[in-house]
């Protein structure tokens, strides 16, 4: 199945949610443009700010996919904490202010065919395996907290051991970062 027939199918499908599809397409276009800017811009600080747009777009897609709790976590963790870390990293490694040459490797062009071939492979596999699958309609009315309650139940019961494991990973990472970065 090609992308074109996929498009035709999504148009001819009677019960498709047009507003959801348009919102998805707009956000996706902005995200792809911003992601391309992240990997092509010559200014490190601008790359970090474009990354904010990508991460915000991902959070918006989570809301479209009815995953509100993950969306809020994404905003707090990525846009709140990780971006501050990145900006600190840029500041402490004294990146040049303004455009900077030499951000790319000498053989950076090799990345283009790699990325294109990889995308072709992924797109073929995705369309082959999931080309016809539709997503469950996002519950736009009613009790929206059900998913969050479910997440809490599973994290604190079924996935309790992995959750503890992750807390130890975070603790070790925090201590390791302090040990690595302190001066003496």
């Amino acid at each position, binding site marked *: 199945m090609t992308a074109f027939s996929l498009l035709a199918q999504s148009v001819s499908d009677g019960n498709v949610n047009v507003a959801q599809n348009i919102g998805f397409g707009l956000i996706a276009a902005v995200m792809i443009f911003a992601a391309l800017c992240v990997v092509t811009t010559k200014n490190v600080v601008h790359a970090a700010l474009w990354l904010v747009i990508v991460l915000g777009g991902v959070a918006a897609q989570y809301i479209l996919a009815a995953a509100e709790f993950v969306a809020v976590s994404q905003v707090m963790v990525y846009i709140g904490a990780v971006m501050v870390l*990145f900006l600190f990293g840029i500041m402490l490694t004294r990146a040049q202010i303004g455009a900077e040459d030499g951000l790319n490797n000498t053989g950076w062009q090799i990345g283009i065919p790699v990325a294109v071939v990889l995308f072709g492979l992924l797109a073929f596999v995705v369309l082959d395996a999931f080309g016809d699958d539709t997503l469950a309609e996002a519950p736009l009315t009613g009790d929206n907290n059900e998913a969050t309650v479910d997440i809490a139940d599973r994290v604190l019961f079924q996935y309790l051991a992995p959750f503890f494991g992750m807390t130890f990973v975070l603790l070790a990472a925090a201590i390791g970062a302090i040990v690595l970065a302190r001066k003496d």
Partner: protein
Amino acid sequence: MLAANFLLLAAVLFCIGVFGVIARRNAVMVLMSIELVLNSVNLNLIAFALMNDDVDGQVFALFVIGIAAAEVGVGLAMVLLIYRNRRSISLDELSELKG
């Protein structure tokens, strides 16, 4: 809404991230590209959670977000250490392991 929409968007983001990892020389830029890759995987997990009408995918996405935060913290600490020792974070100059 088709599941392939989300999966194709995630594939595009993944490939852009892989291109960034290959093309960039600055270590901080490589870490940013890795964030793109991790976010595309999260997008896939959320799409599968919606497709199967089950929150397991969302729980996994939360775990990935937590691990990614730890990864960025340690990664940037290592970049700072390299910068302090060598006054440069160009990855192509870190060639001590080459025989």
